[in-house]
């Protein structure tokens, strides 16, 4: 049984999705989703423990040898990502019942949960697979189900947002496939490990460079790196609350993992960052993302849209850490990946609870909400403080690592910019706190009560986690440092 954990990680949500698609009653669908979502972190935690004890796990799908078959390969890096995705899904599941019942038409709830589980299976598959083309298939599985999930939003603008995301996401996936095709032509294999071994001995480097370019651009479209982020604000703003929470916490993170896997493990950090001018380009784009997206966030009138732009900026911090390509830098990037997922999940779940009670999510409609829903907004405020990077919260840890990493490579200006950018975060988080507590309650807000307990519990749990991981950082920073070392040492 323990041997089959890697396959179970993907097969269980997939079969769960199929069962939900067969029996599309809302309550049964939600129950299956909860059972599957709670089983996922168990499997991921077992995998993580195994990897910490035994090293890399290699699972041969279908019993075929990796030279001719598909291999699922788990090392410390993707064990962390698997645990992140499954933990987020497990926390969202109890929250989802009431939120979905209120936002999605009754006949569509069954299909909603089926697509949700398919998306979960796809994201877990991207993280666990060791085969480049299998990663493309899982990438498209998770993306197609995301387009459908986003399109189920109430507003008709959700349809346009889903369409825009579809166009850009498919172009990104096709670029990725072109890159993988070029790598396959040059090395003769699709297994990531074998490509990494054979890539040093190819007869001509130009196709490898082209492959790197295509794969980078393709994955950047999926992880919403500036300037390829255009689909994200609309998609997150108009999607149902559960979908925004889930995607904001997982989809971009898994794409970042895939990017890190290719750049560090397959192509090699030395080749990509030392020989090619990737670091300056990536640093420039990350800084542009942080400042540009942060500034645009300040001027939004829709709260969800504001935090969607914030997500684009935060992704910039993660890619900044990866671009610095030192142990501290990559650790900072990975820690921020984990922390940001927790923070954004808390914030968007809190906003989902507000939407559930009030029915609207523009700033003037939720004025004074802090006094009517103190616990919910309190949790959102704590997550907001973590987003700013107040000492004692998780966000401070990742910003600290990034500042130290920039100082280590001697870029004082970058460290200064990172600290300056927290000012912008203070402004937009401050806007939310001001509207929530320091304004008179609007007409709709005057009659609402606190969110129901099944929504409050996950929100408070995650908010507590953002504080806990700011104090005890073994699980985030300690493991992320081991993962960073594994990435930077090249072949796994």
């Amino acid at each position, binding site marked *: 049984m323990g041997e089959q954990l890697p396959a179970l990680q993907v097969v269980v949500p997939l079969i769960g999705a199929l069962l939900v698609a067969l029996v599309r009653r809302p309550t049964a669908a939600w129950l299956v989703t909860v059972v599957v979502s709670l089983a996922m972190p168990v499997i991921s935690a077992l995998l993580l423990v195994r990897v910490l004890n035994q090293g890399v796990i290699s699972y041969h799908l279908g019993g075929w040898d990796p030279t001719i078959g598909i291999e699922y390969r788990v090392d410390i890096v993707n064990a962390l990502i698997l645990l992140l995705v499954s933990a987020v899904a497990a926390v969202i599941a109890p929250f989802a019942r009431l939120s979905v019942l209120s936002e999605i038409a009754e006949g569509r709830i069954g299909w909603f949960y089926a697509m949700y589980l398919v998306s979960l299976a796809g994201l877990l598959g991207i993280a666990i697979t060791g085969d480049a083309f299998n990663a493309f298939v899982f990438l498209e599985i998770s993306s*197609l189900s995301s387009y459908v999930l986003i399109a189920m939003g109430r507003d008709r603008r959700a349809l346009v947002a889903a*369409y825009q995301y579809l*166009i850009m996401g498919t172009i990104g996936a096709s670029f990725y*496939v*072109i890159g993988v095709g070029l790598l396959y032509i040059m090395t003769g294999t699709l297994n990531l490990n074998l490509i990494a071994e054979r890539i040093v001995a190819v007869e001509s480097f130009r196709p490898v460079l082209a492959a790197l370019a295509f794969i980078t651009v393709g994955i950047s479209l999926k992880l919403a790196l500036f300037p390829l982020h255009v689909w994200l604000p609309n998609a997150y703003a108009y999607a149902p609350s559960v979908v925004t929470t889930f995607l904001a916490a997982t989809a971009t993170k898994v794409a970042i993992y895939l990017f890190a896997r290719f750049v560090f493990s397959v192509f090699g950090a030395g080749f990509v960052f030392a020989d090619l001018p990737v670091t300056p380009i990536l640093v420039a784009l990350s800084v542009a993302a942080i400042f540009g997206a942060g500034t645009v966030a300040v001027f939004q009138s829709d709260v969800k849209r504001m935090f969607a732009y914030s997500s684009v900026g935060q992704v910039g911090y993660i890619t900044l850490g990866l671009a610095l390509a030192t142990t501290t830098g990559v650790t900072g990037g990975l820690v921020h990946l984990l922390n940001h997922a927790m923070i954004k999940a808390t914030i968007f779940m809190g906003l989902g609870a507000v939407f559930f009670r009030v029915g609207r999510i523009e700033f003037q409609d939720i004025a004074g909400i802090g006094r009517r829903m103190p616990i919910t907004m309190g949790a959102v405020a704590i997550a907001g403080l973590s987003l700013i990077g107040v000492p004692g919260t998780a966000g401070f840890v990742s910003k600290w690592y990034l500042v130290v990493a920039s100082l280590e490579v001697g870029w004082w200006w970058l460290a200064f910019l990172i600290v300056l950018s927290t000012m912008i975060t203070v402004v937009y988080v401050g806007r939310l706190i001001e509207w929530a507590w320091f304004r008179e309650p609007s007409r709709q807000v005057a009659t609402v009560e606190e969110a129901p307990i099944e929504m409050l519990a996950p929100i408070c749990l995650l908010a507590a986690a953002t504080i806990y991981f700011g104090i005890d950082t073994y699980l985030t920073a300690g493991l992320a440092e081991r993962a960073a070392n594994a990435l930077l040492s090249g072949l796994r």
Partner: protein
Amino acid sequence: MSDLIALAGDVVAHYNQWITVFLMVSGLYIVIARGNMVKKLVGLSLFQTSVYLLYISAGKILSGTAPIIDPHFTVYSHPLPHVLILTAIVVGIATMAVGLALVVRINEAYGTIEEDEIFKRDDDR
């Protein structure tokens, strides 16, 4: 002179990759330059087709036959690119189906499928 002929020969010999690039670029151009949502999807489909050509033309083995064991033949084409492209074609079809379904819903919600019209109507709200 003979260098030039050799160069021209090299260029023409890679005609499969020239066609791939041409389809890729025209598909991308249609996606960017056309405002009609169905036309964008057509451009996307064209772009994806170029990717199929890239893989299959690279997988061709000269004088190789179809990869099905037959006592008369000894040289077979590599089956893996064909399997990959079958998967990619199915993914492309699923994408087109979702895209077209979205266009139908957008048409019902907005009454138009031209992007500039839709943005105007959203700004007016």
